[in-house]
């Protein structure tokens, strides 16, 4: 770079910086509402993210609820060498976990059973043989247990509907249980 070019560069730099001095000194500034708008918008976004989080949690809870039921069924009735099957004529304990959705204040659940499947209870004869039942929930309860028995083999659909204290449906779930003949 020759000295003339260096001089030209320096002159340009000097002039450019001088011009910008006016710009820098000017009272030109951000809107007085900028800060308020940004903070309000950030708050709104945060609230929206919280709602999305809870929606996702609810969906995840539903999935985990289903998995838990399947796992429980498996634990109570598993056969080591085969996949899980419930046995016809044998009582089967089903536990619907509600700990993941306790914020929704589950007040009660309605359980509906298909043909040839009935509730089973040694102590409560009213329940024995029924195909629909309302289970009331205490705030401390972590799950809603019930026992069923099938007279027939095949896949049976159990419908569980959870309600809050305003009788609004919180969650509806259909559980398919495969029954096989005992022995």
């Amino acid at each position, binding site marked *: 770079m020759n000295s003339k070019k260096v001089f030209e560069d320096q002159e340009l730099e000097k002039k450019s*910086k001088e011009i*910008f001095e006016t710009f820098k000194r*000017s*009272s030109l*500034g*951000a809107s007085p509402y900028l*800060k308020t708008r940004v903070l309000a918008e*950030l708050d709104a976004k945060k609230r929206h993210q919280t709602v999305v989080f809870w929606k996702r949690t609810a969906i995840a809870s539903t999935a985990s609820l289903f998995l838990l039921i399947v796992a429980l069924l498996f634990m109570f009735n598993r056969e080591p060498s085969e996949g899980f099957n419930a046995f016809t004529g044998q009582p089967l304990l089903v536990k619907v976990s509600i700990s993941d959705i306790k914020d929704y204040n589950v007040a009660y659940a309605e359980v509906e059973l298909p043909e040839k499947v009935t509730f089973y209870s040694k102590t409560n004869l009213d329940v024995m043989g029924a195909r629909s039942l309302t289970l009331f929930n205490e705030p401390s309860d972590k799950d809603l247990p019930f026992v069923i028995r099938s007279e027939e083999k095949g896949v049976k659909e159990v419908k569980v509907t959870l309600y809050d204290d305003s009788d609004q449906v919180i969650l509806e779930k259909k559980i398919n249980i495969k029954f096989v003949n005992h022995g």
Partner: protein
Amino acid sequence: MGTSELDNIASMVRLAKTGDKEALSLLIEATQDRFYKFIFGVTGNKHIADDVCQESYLRALEHLDKLRDDSKFISWLYRTGKNAFLDHLKQRSNKNVSINDTDLNDARNLGSEAVDNIIYINQVLQSLGEEERMVLLAVDMEGNTYAEAAELLDITEEAVRMKLFRARKKFVENFETSKEHVSSIKWENENEFKKGI
């Protein structure tokens, strides 16, 4: 920007990351005017500058937890500003985003004696390409070194050097021409006014 000011901003960023709203508020206050001047220079339009400025803060603060080095907040904000402006240009690619009468009136309402100069500067800045404008503002207005400007704008130091030379040349020449042109218009108007009397 001095070291103590940068330290101060880094402390605000640290607190803001923990969700401290007061720190967030102070962080905006501490940086907004300087950042706004840069964005105004880049956009050449008060309303667009308002929007881009707001969008930049939103993006930068919303993802503040991703900023590893708290002392780099200014670079983070300027890079976000550059991207927000480029996104704005993409969205409005079919519309004219150059300075208009409303913006000139807004500038006149600033009440400064240097208003005419701001208008000329703004007009001349808009005659440069976007990258040239940003480099020029980052170095000659903001006082950043080539390395700092490269970091702010996410380009190489060599690119800064090349763009800056071209930008300065065009900027200074166009500014002088624009000023002479406006002065002569003013002079003619003044003579016509006197003749009218």
